[in-house]
C-alpha cells in the first residue's frame, strides 16, 4: 500500500508540474463560465443579457434544467472534454511511460521490492489522474452552474466522471502500448491521435450508414402502408362491383371502371415492385451496417461511450429537433421518422456491448504492454 500510495502521489506531482494541466484546467473553467452565460427562455436563447428569439429552440421545447444538461453533455463533454481537453491530456500524459522507461530512471524503481506488473498498472492508473482531475473539476463546476442557473441539482451529472475517465482510458491504453514498445513520446502521442481519428471516421461512417438504413426502412414502411391502403381500396372497389354490374341507363361509368381497376392493379404492382426494390436496398445497407458493426466490435467505442452520457442524462423527448406539424411534407415526416428510428437504434445498442468490447480492447493492449514491460531488459 505504501508503494501504491507513493506512486499515485508521484503521478499527481508529475501532472501538477505540467503547465498544460493548469492551462487545460483554466480552459475548463472558461467553458463552465460560457455554459453559465447561456440561458433558455420561452422565446429563445439568452446569452448574458442578449436574447435571441428562436421558435424552434426555447424553454417550451426544452426546460432550463434539460437545456443545461444538454449543453453540459454536448458542448462540455462531447466537444470540450472528449475532443479538445482529451488531446491536451494525451499530449500531457503521453510522455509518462517513455519518460519512466528512460535509462537511469526505470532502474531506480525496478530495483525496489515491487513487481513489474503492479508497477505497470499503478503507473497506468496514475496516468489517468490527469483525465480524472480535469473531468472532476469540470463536472463540479457544471453541477453548480446547472443548480444555480437551471434550478435543478442534478447529482446524475457526476456519472460523467467515470464515463469520461473510461473514454480517456481507451486512448491512454493505446498511448501506453505504443510508449512501452517505442519508448518515444512523440510517436506514441501522434499515432494515438491518428488512430483516434480513424475511430472517428469509422464512427461517423456508422452514423451515416445507420441514418441511411433508417431512411430506407422508413421508406419501406411507408410503401407498405401505401400498398395496404391501395389493396384495401381495391377490395372496396371489387365489393362495390355487383351493384355496378347493372348500370343505370345513359351513364358512362361502366365503360371507365375496367380502366380504373387496371390502373389500381398497376399501382399495386408498381408499389409492390418499389417495396421489393427498397427491401433489396435495405438488405444491402444492412450488410454494410453489419460489416461496420463487426469492425467496431473489436475497436474501442470512444464516441458511443461519451454518447452514453446523453443517453443517460437527456430524455429523448427533450432533444432539440425541428418541429413537425400537420402541414409537414411527406419528406419531412419521413425524415422525422428516420431520426426517431436512428435514435432508437443507437440508444438500443447495449451498454455492455459499447463498454464491454471497448474494455476488452483496452485490456488486451494493456496486457501486451505489461508483458513487454515485464520481459524487457532496461
Amino acid at each position, binding site marked *: 500500500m505504501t*508503494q501504491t500510495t507513493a506512486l499515485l502521489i*508521484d503521478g499527481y*506531482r*508529475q501532472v501538477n508540474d505540467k503547465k498544460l494541466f493548469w492551462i487545460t484546467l483554466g480552459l475548463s473553467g472558461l467553458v463552465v463560465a460560457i455554459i453559465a452565460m447561456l440561458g433558455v427562455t420561452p422565446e429563445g436563447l439568452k446569452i448574458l443579457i442578449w436574447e435571441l428569439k428562436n421558435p424552434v429552440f426555447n424553454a417550451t421545447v426544452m426546460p432550463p434544467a434539460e437545456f443545461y444538461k444538454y449543453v453540459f453533455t454536448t458542448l462540455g463533454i462531447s466537444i470540450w472534454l472528449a475532443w479538445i481537453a482529451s488531446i491536451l491530456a494525451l499530449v500531457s500524459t503521453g510522455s509518462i511511460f517513455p519518460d519512466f522507461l528512460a535509462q537511469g*530512471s526505470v*532502474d*531506480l524503481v525496478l530495483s525496489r*521490492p515491487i513487481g513489474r506488473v503492479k508497477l505497470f498498472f499503478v503507473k497506468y492508473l496514475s496516468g489517468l489522474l490527469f483525465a480524472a482531475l480535469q473531468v472532476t473539476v469540470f463536472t463540479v463546476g457544471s453541477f453548480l452552474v446547472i443548480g444555480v442557473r437551471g434550478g435543478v441539482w442534478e447529482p446524475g451529472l457526476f456519472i460523467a466522471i467515470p464515463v469520461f475517465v473510461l473514454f480517456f482510458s481507451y486512448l491512454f491504453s493505446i498511448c501506453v502500448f505504443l510508449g512501452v514498445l517505442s519508448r518515444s513520446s512523440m510517436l506514441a502521442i501522434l499515432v494515438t491521435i491518428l488512430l483516434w481519428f480513424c475511430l472517428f471516421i469509422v464512427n461517423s461512417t456508422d452514423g451515416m450508414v445507420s441514418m441511411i438504413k433508417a431512411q430506407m426502412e422508413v421508406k419501406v414502411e411507408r410503401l407498405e402502408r401505401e400498398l395496404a391502403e391501395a389493396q384495401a381500396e381495391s377490395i372496396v372497389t371489387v365489393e362495390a362491383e355487383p351493384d355496378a354490374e347493372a348500370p343505370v341507363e345513359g351513364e358512362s361509368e361502366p365503360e371507365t371502371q375496367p380502366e380504373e381497376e387496371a390502373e389500381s392493379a398497376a399501382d399495386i404492382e408498381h408499389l409492390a415492385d418499389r417495396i421489393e426494390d427498397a427491401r433489396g436496398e435495405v438488405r444491402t445497407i444492412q450488410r454494410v451496417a453489419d460489416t461496420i458493426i463487426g469492425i467496431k466490435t473489436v475497436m474501442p467505442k470512444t464516441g458511443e461511450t461519451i454518447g452514453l452520457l446523453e443517453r443517460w442524462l437527456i430524455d429523448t423527448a427533450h432533444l432539440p429537433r425541428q418541429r413537425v406539424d400537420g402541414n409537414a411534407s411527406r419528406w419531412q415526416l419521413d425524415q422525422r421518422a428516420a431520426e426517431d428510428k436512428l435514435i432508437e437504434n443507437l440508444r438500443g445498442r447495449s451498454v455492455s456491448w459499447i463498454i464491454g468490447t471497448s474494455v476488452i480492447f483496452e485490456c488486451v493492449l494493456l496486457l501486451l504492454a505489461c508483458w513487454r514491460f515485464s520481459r524487457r531488459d532496461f
Partner: protein
Amino acid sequence: MPVDDLAIDLNHVEKRFGRSVHALRGVNMQVHGGEVFGLLGPNGAGKSTLVKIMMTVVHASHATGTILGRRIGHKPTLKRIGYLPEHARFPSYLSGRQVIDFFGAMAKMPRPQRRVRVDQMLELVGAAEYADRKIKTYSKGMQQRIGLAQAMVHDPDLLVLDEPTDGVDPIGRRDIREALTQIRDDGKTVFINSHLLSELEMVCERVAFLVQGQVVKQGRIEDLTFDQVHYQIVLHRPMGVEAIGSALAVEWDGQIGASVTGKTAEGLLLELTDSTLTLRSSDPLDAQPLIDRLRAADMVITDVRSVRPTLEELLLQAVGENGGAS
C-alpha cells in the same frame, strides 16, 4: 550479518542480448559481508549488465547464486539493498527531499520512519541546504549526492553503486568516500562499479576484474599485487648509466622507452630511469646489497621505497592477458 557470510555469491552468470552479443560469459564472483568491494573492467566488459542483473533490471540468461542469502532476482530481498544506477535520472518535478522520501516509500518504509531517515540522509550526504529545491535546478554533483541518499534511506545491508562519483567534484568525492567508510564501519556491504580506479583503490578492500564478460581476477588488493611489489632506489642526481652499471656490476642489455634494463650477478632484474633504479623483486633483502654497492661508490641515495602496482596497472595487465579492449 556475520562478516564471514557472503553478501553476494554469483555463479555462472550469463547474459546474451539476441544471438550475437554475449555480454556475460559465466561470471563467478564472491563479495563478503561488511566489505567494500570494487568491480573493475574496461568499457563494454559487462560491468553495468552484471549490476543490473543483480538489481533485477536485466534478466540473466542463466544465473545461479545468491544475494544476501536469497536467489538472484528475489524481489523481497531488494528491500535490503540500496542502488544508485549509472546516469541516474530523478523526476525533475520533485525536490531532493521528495526524491529520497519517494524511494524510501518504494522500499516499503513507513511514513514516520521516512521523515526521520530523510533528514538524516540529507545531513549525511551534505544536501540539506538545497533539499527543498526542485531536482531540475541541481548540478550533477548535487544529484549524485541525492542519489546516494535515496540508495541508503532504507538502511540497506548491501549498497550497490554504479559510478557513484561520476560528475562529482573532488570535495564531493571525498564526502562520498567518507560516507562509504562510515557505512562499512556500520557493518554494511558496499559494492562499487567505477572506472575511477584511484577512487576504488582508496576505499575498496577487495576487487574483481571483469574482462570480456568474465571475472579474470578477484581478491584483496594486497594479495593481487603481492607478487608484483618492487623496490625503487632514488639517487640524488642522475649518475650516468655506465657509472651505475659499474658500481652494481650490471651489464645493461635492454631498453624500454627512456629506461635501460639489465641483470645483476645474482640474477636480479634492474631498470634505470634517470636517477631512479627499480629492482624487480618483492623481497626487501634483495635491495640491501645494491644499496651497499651504491653507497660504496659514493653515490647519494635520497629515497628507498617499496612500490605496488596500481589498480590501473593491474587492470591493463588483466586486459592485456585476456585480449580485452579498453
